[in-house]
């Protein structure tokens, strides 16, 4: 399966290529006051205002230290960007290693001596994961 590998801290997360619109470098982030911690801010992508999310916090595995790159995905509810702390890589996912434990994770895959967790983007970006606001 063709996927984009997203480096988050020391871990790798994979997103199926069909979700991905583009990768943007060094977006100018504007933080949103009172937003939940999963939201790093918004940036302008050719006139469209796109929210940027902290993948580590969405998955509850910690927070991304830095975000020089973002992967823009089409979530079905509009564009969203997932922050990456290094250049995302295109890769073919290899052997499946088992089910994933993180919420929104589909399965673990072997990929070039690394372990990448394939994400279901719509589940990762579910309102309950993003948090904040009123029910």
């Amino acid at each position: 399966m063709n996927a984009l590998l997203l480096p988050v801290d020391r871990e790798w997360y994979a997103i199926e290529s069909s979700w991905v619109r583009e990768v943007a470098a060094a977006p100018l982030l504007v933080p949103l006051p009172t937003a939940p911690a999963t939201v790093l801010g918004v940036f302008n992508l050719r006139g469209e205002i796109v929210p940027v999310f902290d993948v580590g916090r969405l998955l509850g595995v910690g927070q991304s230290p830095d975000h020089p790159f973002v992967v823009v995905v089409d979530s079905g509810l509009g564009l969203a960007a997932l922050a990456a702390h290094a250049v995302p890589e295109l890769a073919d996912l290899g052997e499946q290693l088992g089910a994933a434990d993180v919420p929104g994770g589909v399965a673990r895959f072997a990929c070039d001596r690394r372990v990448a967790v394939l994400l279901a983007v719509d589940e990762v970006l579910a309102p309950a994961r993003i948090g904040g606001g009123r029910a």
Partner: protein
Amino acid sequence: MNNLGGYEEEFRRLFADESQTRLLRLSTDLLRLEEAGNDAELVASIFRDAHSIKGAAGMVGLDAVARVAHVMEDLLEGLRNGERMASPELVDGLLVAVDALRSLIPAMLQGEALDDEAAVVEAGVRALVDVPGRHGTPSAVAPADVPPPGSEPEPASADREAAPRRRADAAAETIRVPVTRLDELVRLVGESAAAHLRMGRMLADVLDVDPATLGEFRELSHVLNELQEKTMRARMVPVATITDNLHRAVRDVARSCGKDVHWEVRGEDTELDRSMLEQLADPLLHLVRNAVDHGIEPPEEREAAGKPRQATVRLHAMQLGSEVIIAVSDDGGGIDVDRVREQAARRGDDVTGVSDEDALYLTFRSGLSTAGFISDVSGRGVGLDVVRTSVDAARGRIEVLSTPGRGTEFRIVVPITLAVLPCLLLEAGGHRYAVPMHSVLVAQEVDDDALVHAEGRPTMWVGSQAVVVSDLGRVLGAERDAAGPVVVLSAVTRRHAFRVGALLGQRDVVVKGLGRLLPRLDVLAGAGVEPDGSVLLVLDAPGVIDRARKLRDRPGTTTAAAAAGGRDRPAPGPRGAILVVDDALTVRELQRSILERAGYRVRTADDGVDALARLAEEPVDLVLTDIEMPRLDGFGLTEAIRGHASLATTPVVILTSRATAEDRRRGLDSGADGYIVKSAFDEAALLNAVERLLGRAP
């Protein structure tokens, strides 16, 4: 089924659209029929619509709907040939049928088997054949003017219906465009304007040319401005698009509470942004129902006061600069300010020294009502605080004027459009923000000497009002600005001052939403894109003010925690204690379960005597009682509570299956605070009524 070839789907879709349009017009025309009597052209139009629905329904296989339309047609035939006059009862019955068809047809087109329901509607219309016609003078139009049955109705020449008809003809020259396409146009025009600004900067920075000296550049600016304005216009709709619904509400409420009300609309051609008008539809509906139900006195009372029996409720729309004012006024009894004060006092507010004018604004607080009484009509547990919330959401403000014995007027003031807003640009806590100009009252440098301190908070005088000053940066969860100018924001009825880092100027901002992925952030109205491509956040005054007040009310809250938490949910802790009084066990237990789930402590009693015994053991925060009970009924219980020294201020809500005006008056006389009719009973209505009386301001 029929000879539709492969186009069956297409025909059904067309019928779905067409039938809705026709049914909508039918209900409008029926309302006019009631006022105009057997106007030949109007009857003809109604007849045509029923006839077309019959034909088309049969074609797409909705035979049950066709039968309903057929019976309607038969009935209308009587109107057309002058055998029968339009009576309120007849119009009532036809409106019910039209409403039913409006929901039945889409469901049936989706494949739901609702033939039985349609048959019920059909029987309802059939029963109208026996309804007597209007008594007394027949309508202004003599039956001779009515075309003989079977002939095609001719267009009227110059009767009084001609003007609205012409409007309908003008509408025929329009086309339907999906709103999304218009939104896209607006977005692209905004983009062009931003690109144009960037180009100007590039000319200056890279080529060292002042763009203002270039004729071509100025020409482009001019055209883009005009394009922007025209595109905005395309999204505007006249107020007339929502007035039919309001007319219907006035009529229905008036009939249900036995009042004679004349409905009047002025300035219905006033245009405003479609999404803005949509947001105002509900608050206006509420104000109009409120006017009829609470504002207008019963006809006998009006006569006794020397007023005409027929009351008037008027909607007046007008444009004033970049704002639209929509006023709903009535010539009823006015708001009883003393009663409002009394209610506020009972909720624990300090009302000493509150002027009559300020007391009027108290009605927008949660838990207070203009009637002092939650009735089943406009009440349903929604008060003016809900109107306030909707107007807040539309970034507008609301004003109220009331003269005892003369009437009440509510004015909603909103910007014409939300898409482009003139904004004040400022810096707070190290970030740049825009604030819509219409919510900025004052922006000025303020010396520390000009500030007074009260309860540990800096306060400044704005006119005759003392306004608390908060630090905007801290309210938004960022750094505090030690010194800097102060901006006073106003939202509906609230004012609050904010210390900011710096004022940066004014600019029109094309405001975009933040998208559906993010949770709603109350402090933000949206965002715009700056000429340099960065995002400029637009603050929402009502949200910012609410947040400032909430932080102020919770001393010791760290801003970091407040910033991380987003909007807080109400704490689910214990709420009030409620005594439920009803002789029917099922009713009692139903109410108990609803209230307990909402977090209230509930005790129960079988009748009035039992209730008083329970209250003697331990007082409660609210009593919810049935009327008809053995030993002591609900009225008696209410009177006993009011007459008891320590219980007198306990709110009492009467819940009953009775709905007559007489009952309601008795309830009011006995001193009850609210009245919920069981037929209109639902969980939300009950909880709303209870929450309003217990003063759980959001």
